[in-house]
């Protein structure tokens, strides 16, 4: 079926993108008042909300506290209406638990945990609409929420996915490309020092093709970083200019 080809002969993907093109990214920091930090992020049709609470005292048993570093607590959940077929439970299923563990690992690597011993930080991610790249959107949204909360971090942490279709590495894959049994590589990196903090691959891929795909994903991550960083800085400049006017007069 010609219409279903993931990469057409002219080099376009099903949604009209080029292989190295990202989906449109839009975001807003500080969408909620009650959370210490929050962000909403759209990557194409994938829409994610993230909220950060803390650092605060350990909730529940004190036994969980780490004497030398911050305890990071994550929860990943998906709205029951977020997927094409309705989900029965928003969280607690195996996939969500795995995702929670991944997020925890990712943010443990980037937050300066030794600055806050014996306390806890909560990162909650809620997927409102899912169209592939849920992990990537979650990580990017959570990063923005952490920035909004003012948590000290080594760098941004940016995630992006990629695949290998018809001898071409493609970046930021959507749900259709994700579910079409091709290889899928997910990476989270620290864009400024080019360190990989998380990598996962599903399905199989020839060894020779791995490094082109990884390079493409790395470029994708840096592109996302530039988009996020630009807007974060612009907002900050605008805010500080406003504050200066208030201070001076």
């Amino acid at each position: 079926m010609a219409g279903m080809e993931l990469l057409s002969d002219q080099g376009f993907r099903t949604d009209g993108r080029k292989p190295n093109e990202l989906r449109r990214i839009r975001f807003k920091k500080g969408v909620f008042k009650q959370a210490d930090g929050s962000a909403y992020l759209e990557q194409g049709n994938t829409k994610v909300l993230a909220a950060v609470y803390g650092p605060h005292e350990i909730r529940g048993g004190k036994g969980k506290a780490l004497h030398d570093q911050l305890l990071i607590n994550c929860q990943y959940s998906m709205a029951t209406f977020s997927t094409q077929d309705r989900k029965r439970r928003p969280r607690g299923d195996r996939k969500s638990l795995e995702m929670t563990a991944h997020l925890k690992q990712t943010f443990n690597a980037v937050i300066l945990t030794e600055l806050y011993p014996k306390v806890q930080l909560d990162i909650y991610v809620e997927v409102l609409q899912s169209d592939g790249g849920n992990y990537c959107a979650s990580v990017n949204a959570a990063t923005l929420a952490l920035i909004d909360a003012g948590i000290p971090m080594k760098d941004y942490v940016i995630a992006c996915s990629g695949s290998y279709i018809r001898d071409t590495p493609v970046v930021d894959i959507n749900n259709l490309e994700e579910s079409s049994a091709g290889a899928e590589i997910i990476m989270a990196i620290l864009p400024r020092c080019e360190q990989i903090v998380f990598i996962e691959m599903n399905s199989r891929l020839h060894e020779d093709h791995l490094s082109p795909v990884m390079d493409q994903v790395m470029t994708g991550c840096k592109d996302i970083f530039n988009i996020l960083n630009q807007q974060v800085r612009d907002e900050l400049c605008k805010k500080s200019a406003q504050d200066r006017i208030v201070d001076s007069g």
Partner: protein
Amino acid sequence: MTDVDLSEAEKTFILHSMQDNFREDGRGCEDFRHMEVETGLISNTNGSARVRLASTDILVGVKVQLVPVDPNKPNVGRIEFFLDCSANATPAFEGRGGEGLASEITAMLTRAYSCPSAIDYPSLCVLPGQQCWLLYIDVLLLECGGNLFDAVSIAVKSALFNLRIPNVTMTKDEGGIELDVSDDPFDFKRLDVAGAPIIVTVNKIGHFHVVDASEKEEVCSLARLMLGITEKGTVTAMKKEGSGSLDTDSISEMIESAKKVGVELNKCLLNILMTEEGQEVKPVGFLR
């Protein structure tokens, strides 16, 4: 549910100002806070709406599915409510922490919508005695700023207004009747929500009855009455909540007050939804 801690002095302040007919934010007893309604933000659903009432934030998605009819009611469709308290609202909802509150709200919604005239249930029946539409109404609680029940019911009504149910064609062959759901996004029918109720919560604070209580006022109120009110002023459900008790006189007064507010609120909401649809603006959602 709330992490608002008020000292005795603060409570007394709210109570005393109520006696002089002032609320902490300057509203009258029957005034609502600023509210924003938006429909059609989640494209994976058949109908969706977001309501932001002061800092209470609710997102509702409705999905439809063809299912066998309920043998006891073979000629009507079905609806099912589900509410998820997102941990984004407060860390107390993490894991299964929000389930108590969730079941309370879904029970109230189910009761309010169990009235046969609430929505056009027979129109949801596709093939009498065999197949009907089941509406999964999934509510997501994103932030709590008081008056959850009312905000949830407003969001549910807006999402039902936005609902687009695909048309079904039936073909008869020897094996029986075959149902074919249209996959054309413009081939749909709407649901009549004129009779859908909105929950109005009337809080008793001191000797006064107030609607749309903020979180602080909710802490001061010992008893509240929740009523499902339709556009015509019919009461479809009633529930008393809270540790205090109420006498019959104040209950009838509260019902009158809720009716007045409920009728007005229903009218306003329908008006807003109609105008929003007429303008055909793209939803901005959380980016605003």
